[in-house]
């Protein structure tokens, strides 16, 4: 297990301090850590466990239960493509295949340039504008393969 860098450790402690007084705040703390560090480093688990006075296994169990939390570094952006029924009815499978081919990665993988991590998601509440995807916090609707190429060009210009 890689030790936490000093800055990471400080961030984790700061987030813990901000939430500690709130009952049942473990998910909030994990959200905070992932938002700040991009993932939840294995070495953060014992720190969180100790500060909250719960077992490491409990913290680890929570991190692994939820699809959103990840234990490994990811790309600078996360692309979540909806795989659920409404998006399927409008071509999500073809869109997904296109995106995988364009980025050269499968789900849960990161592009070699470190720009994008690709994840599946099950409904984004955009089911009247399917197929949908979420880039970080930017929601996109009616994403045809052609539209995806336009979006990708925009994103590559921006970063």
């Amino acid at each position, binding site marked *: 297990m890689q030790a936490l860098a000093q800055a990471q450790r400080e961030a984790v402690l700061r987030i813990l301090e901000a939430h500690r007084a709130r*009952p*049942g*705040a*473990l*998910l*909030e703390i*994990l*959200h905070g850590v992932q938002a700040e560090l991009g993932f939840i480093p294995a070495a953060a688990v014992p720190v969180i466990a100790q500060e909250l006075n719960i077992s490491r296994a*409990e913290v680890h*169990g*929570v991190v692994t*239960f*939820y*699809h*959103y*939390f990840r234990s490994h570094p990811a790309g600078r952006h996360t692309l*979540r493509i909806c795989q*659920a*029924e*409404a*998006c*399927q*009815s*409008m071509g999500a499978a073809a869109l997904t295949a296109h995106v995988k081919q364009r980025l050269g990665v499968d789900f849960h993988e990161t592009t070699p340039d470190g720009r994008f991590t690709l994840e599946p*998601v*099950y*409904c*984004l*509440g*955009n*089911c*009247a*504008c*399917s197929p*949908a995807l*979420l880039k970080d*916090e930017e*929601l*996109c*609707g*009616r994403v045809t393969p052609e539209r995806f190429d336009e979006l990708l060009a925009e994103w590559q210009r921006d970063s």
Partner: protein
Amino acid sequence: MSALTYEIYVPRDASALSLGAESVARAIAAEARTRQIEVRIVRNGSRGLFWLEPLVEVVTPAGRVAYGPVTARDVPGLFDAGFHKGGAHPLALGNIAEHPYLKTQQRLTFERVGVIDPVSVSDYVAHGGYQGLRNALAMSQAEVVQAVTDSGLRGRGGAAFPTGIKWKTVLDQNAPQKYIACNADEGDSGTFADRMLMEGDPLMLVEGMTIAGLAVGATQGYIYLRCEYPHAYRALKEAIAAAYQARYLGADVMGSGRRFDLEVRLGAGAYVCGEETSMLESLEGKRGEVRVRPPLPAIKGLFGQPTVVNNVITLASVPVIVAKGAQHYRDFGMGKSRGTLPIQLAGNIKHGGLVERAFGLTLKELLYDYGGGSATGRPIRAIQVGGPLGAYIPASQFDVQVDYEALAGIGALLGHGGIVVFDDTVDMARMARYAMEFCAIESCGKCTPCRIGSTRGVEVMDRIIQGIDTERNLKLLEDLCETMLQGSLCGLGGMTPYPVTSALKHFSEDFRARARDH
């Protein structure tokens, strides 16, 4: 605001943003500056006519005139046409309130969504907001609970349990602390009513939860929001801060001396956390494993205390009931399904969006009169009602009415009111496989029939799709479904058989005769 300031509405609703509403708002602001026209841009919710989004509205003496769908490129032309005064333009839709999709609706819960500035308390109050809370403060706790019972309101999250009875149970408990937990996990594909309401009129949810808190004696509320909804998260945070500021939340609600505190908590991408006991585990900061019942959450819920768990739409229906009376609400609907239901038309549908009507409309009216048929223009072959655990319904049954009992009568369920439409290119064996796969991905792991059965289900469906030993595998599939139905603790494992067996029953040709796949 000077007389020459034009008021323009551009939605902040996530779906509208997903189609470019942000760049439209920016283009309008920039173009107005260049032309030295003074505008006030209000970021409203969506009216729920998504094929017309981004839908821009301007305030004119003749009402709110709409234009849509607008792209940033259209904006200079719109100004040339004097759209800010309601001028004629190819994208003009006239007075939006007169649009047939809206005019024929019965919007009680969605009355203000798309109309007001969602995070402005003064706008909310100017449009009738907080009248329910005002009334509730003048009533006894038992009277408020009775009003909710008399309204006939049943939970809109899926199980359709009478809300008043649940509240009465919590009211009757003697406990040091009680809670109101709003289920905003909205995980069903084809549903977005909770999201639209939280983005378009979040104060109505805040008011509903406050009334619930006063009614049952709970001083703390939590909204459990799925993390896939970042826009709703922002709107809720802003609305809650505004409500605290205006003293509609906190230690002295509306000067009554009574307390109600409220905060939003984020989920982390687990469908099962929409199940109420799993949600409570998650709110406590744990793995979202389903609890064995009894005890009911109303008796031992969050942190072991009596807890009202209700869906967003259930809680948002309460202010109207308390403001206008139980009878007013009850007068809508049919049989044991009282009031209105926000139905969501999704997937392969031409006019996708939100239709709030009294119970009793037929599927046909929804799909064709409102929905305009499929988006692709091909025949509609199947719909799935009620999310990923809901049954598939073939076109031959589209005459059935939308009502809890009527749908149950054909082996289907209404759930949270989402309808996902598929045209005749759909492969129903693949949809059945997906139902099993989804269950395998999302199972909390507590019961074997769900955890293992769904994985076996995917394998069996793979063989059926490949045309291998079809009849034997179909038999296996039916046995698996029976085991899951009987041996699961919660609806995820227990209801996954609905989409699978309904697909097989109504579309068996997609399961048999798969030789073409070789």
